[in-house]
């Protein structure tokens, strides 16, 4: 490691000032679950490290009438223990519960999961499916961007993610998540899918967003599957058709990649597992 100076920051204002001064020489650390390994292996060699894990304003989970707002420093454990993310937001709870291990969830943060930019980050597909907006601050001011655009418009060296915001769901909307890892604990996603579906009175899909993890260079919306599913009834036949649509769009995207034949097969069971939950929610009272 090559650190010359470290800071225990107590406010976003202070962090923004430090980032403005040091720019690319500085890195932020919160849970440290990825960056400490990168520092140790000299994959990154910043001179300045700024700890943001004890900044109170980043640790809050807030709600107003229509939105839920997560501070970027909220840990996965804090999300899994919060009753807000049970019920129809269960998909976010499930994704956060599948992150790493208890130790990783105690430290790892939702903002870090975004900033780190991994294609396999567990919490991202559900947040993209929810249409989350992220708030980014720098000395130049504040900007808000949809999370799904983050991966093509990443953080500048003087910026910090401070909030992740999404609209509350209505009673006809449900968020689901399914992941394929190599084992139950401590497994990085091989692929994951989140889906947000709103059913109308007749049981047809009124609104749908589907988002995938590790099926491309970064987590993304699966718009072709969404277009197929809209106005359909969710049943075994439409689920199998949706799988074919997803596989076809993967064939294009992952052309020539050695993992394509595997992911093509694996994705079918993950999308099936994910969408079958909606058949259950359609026909019975939610048990969770």
């Amino acid at each position: 490691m090559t650190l010359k100076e470290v800071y225990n920051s107590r406010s976003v204002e202070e962090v923004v000032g430090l980032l403005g001064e040091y720019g690319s020489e500085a890195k932020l650390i919160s849970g440290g679950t990825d960056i400490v390994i990168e520092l140790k292996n000299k994959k990154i060699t910043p001179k300045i490290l700024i700890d943001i894990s004890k900044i109170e304003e980043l640790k809050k989970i807030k709600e107003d009438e229509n939105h839920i707002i997560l501070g970027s420093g909220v840990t996965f454990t804090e999300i899994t223990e919060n009753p807000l993310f049970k019920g129809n937001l269960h998909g976010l709870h499930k994704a956060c519960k599948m992150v790493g291990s208890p130790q990783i969830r105690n430290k790892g943060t939702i903002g870090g999961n975004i900033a780190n930019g991994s294609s396999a980050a567990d919490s991202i597909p559900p947040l993209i499916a929810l249409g989350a907006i992220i708030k980014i601050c720098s000395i130049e001011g504040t900007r808000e961007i949809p999370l799904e655009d983050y991966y093509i418009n990443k953080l500048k060296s003087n910026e910090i993610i401070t909030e992740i915001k999404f609209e509350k769901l209505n009673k006809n909307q449900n968020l689901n998540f399914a992941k394929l890892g190599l084992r139950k604990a401590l497994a990085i996603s091989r692929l994951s899918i989140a889906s947000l579906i709103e059913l109308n009175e007749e049981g047809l899909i009124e609104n749908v967003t589907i988002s995938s993890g590790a099926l491309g260079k970064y987590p993304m919306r699966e718009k072709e599957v969404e277009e197929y599913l809209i106005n359909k009834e969710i049943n075994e036949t439409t689920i199998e058709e949706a799988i074919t649509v997803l596989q076809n769009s993967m064939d294009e995207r992952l052309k020539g990649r050695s993992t394509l034949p595997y992911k093509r097969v694996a994705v079918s069971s993950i999308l099936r597992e994910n969408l079958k939950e909606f058949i259950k929610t359609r026909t019975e009272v939610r048990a969770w």
Partner: protein
Amino acid sequence: MVNISLIVNEKLFEVSVSENLRLIDLLRDELGLIGTKEGCGEGECGACTVIMDGETVNSCLVMAFQANGSNILTIEGMEKEGKIHPIQQAYIDVGAVQCGFCIPGMVLSTKALLDKKPHPSKDEIREGISGNLCRCTGYNKMIYAAEKAIEYMEEGK
């Protein structure tokens, strides 16, 4: 160097540490608390688990300066007045220890679980120790040990 103060095993330490030091290095190399083990060094194995401000963390993934102001419990702090903790006694009594390398972390994960949830189900125990890898036992003995520890703590042993 950076000056930090932290509580480890109920004792206050005021130390000057290198910016590049990790918490595990501080505990082992500076404070001499070598009960905490380094296994993989990347948060996969849980051998370096300590309890930091009430929650388990992998001490190989925390920078020492981040522990400024924190309260840390390592395996050495489990002993009270010359007597080992009921969780440790239970691990011994059911034979949950083979090579022993994972045990400090395993015991602290068990403690953090029982502090939060005194009567966990078997599945909750499994999940509680899911961040600690053991290549000897197959884990069942640790689950029995946790159950035995609950009995011991209720009996006040």
